């Protein structure tokens, strides 16, 4: 006989595994520190690429002015300023990533805890025979 409670749990679990749970499962494969470190390395690389592209686009749009100013420009000072701006933006991004990755890991952990609780519920329902009359198990109370 089909136990509707068990069926509902199974559908809910399958839906979680196929949907939002997939991301949570991937995240929870790592330790928290590893996940955050991996996210920060990715942020470092992508932010560097993004800022390089932004600098290239800015230089391309103002190429004539930049070439004119190159003669009078204190190049080491400009490079120092550019490095300072880069480090400032990078630090902001790394801090944001640290916070977001930590939150994301915590949320994934909470979802996985919830998932495991549901799995335990399903295990209980599988062990207990189902009676249609009461919608619950009679033998359970007799034992």
């Amino acid at each position: 006989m089909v136990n509707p409670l068990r069926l509902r749990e199974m559908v809910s679990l399958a839906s979680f595994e196929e949907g939002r749970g997939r991301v949570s499962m991937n995240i929870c494969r790592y330790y928290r520190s590893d996940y955050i470190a991996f996210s920060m390395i990715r942020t470092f690389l992508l932010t560097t690429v993004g800022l390089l592209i932004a600098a290239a686009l800015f230089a391309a749009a103002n190429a004539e002015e930049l070439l004119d100013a190159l003669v009078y420009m204190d190049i080491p000072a400009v490079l120092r300023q550019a490095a300072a701006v880069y480090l400032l933006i990078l630090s902001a991004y790394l801090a944001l990533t640290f916070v977001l990755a930590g939150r994301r890991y915590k949320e994934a952990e909470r979802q996985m805890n919830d998932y495991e609780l549901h799995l335990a519920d399903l295990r209980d329902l599988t062990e207990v025979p189902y009676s249609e009359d009461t919608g619950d198990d009679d033998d359970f109370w007799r034992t």
Partner: protein
Amino acid sequence: MTIFGGLKDKLTLFYGRNSAAVDFLVRFLFVLAEGFFIRSALPFDAILSHPAVLLVLSLTSAVLPAKAGAVIGAVLLTGQAFALDLAAGAVTFLVLVMLYCLFMRFAPDDFPAAPLETMGAYYGFGALVPVLCGLRRKPLSLLTVCPGCVCAFLIRALSEHAEEVRALEQTDYMGKLKLLIGGAFSDELTAALAAVIAALTLTYLVRSLGIRHAHEAAVLSGSAIYLLFYVFGGRIAGGSPDVMLAAAGSAASAAAGLILLMVMLPLDYRKSERLEFEDDGYYYYVRAIPKAHGKHYVGESGAFSANTVPGYDEPIIRPDIDDDELKKKLEDSLNDL
């Protein structure tokens, strides 16, 4: 109000029965609309913009995750720009990569805010997506909405300067780059971004206040501040924004936001919220507590009770109770009965 309540019930029921087909259809239509929008905004002869190709891409994206819609939009946009000119294509590609690297990768996967904002901002309805994001999402959605606004200005620059780019010499890459980058990243874009940030932030803040009719006030204030920033910011930036179009867009965004509020109960399911709504007979003043916060909580009475939950905003974890002990207790109480 009752009509909207009934409509919501019918829609929920219909979606519950046909969710797979509805999801497929919505994704398909969304990418198709995106494709035709890019095709109409940039009418250059690229193979990617052929209706048959658009149809195939839309069908493909319908079976892929929601993020695929944005990726396909980016590919179509780059293809159209390359059809205009090599320099235009390179600029578009680099701008899209930069937006992804700096902003879009923080965006949530499930909401195609960026393409929607691109279409909205292009046609003058730039307030709609920030207001909706402020109602339903967190301020972090700015990282998705702002790139959408940048894409709208990029498309506008490509469309407006197409003839000038074609008129320039084939090898005058610097001239083309200057024209396109200068056109896209103008002071008007800064004003539009400020308007988007102000609208989303204000909507989020007002709807979180817990005052009477907070959600309605949030929609109206968000739309109004967008109009204010867009018009005055644009003027200060030296542009000449179309006031009538902006006002009509903001009014339409406010109307759409209010209609959506009536159809959907504005809950974000992450924290407890105070809600007020009404039907023909009653006013309801409700405190909504997400089930996830109390789902596994078992109090001393053995059941979840809102009064026993210490603080609604914190997730509650079921205390460790030995199953055998629990069964024994239950048996004892039954024997007593």
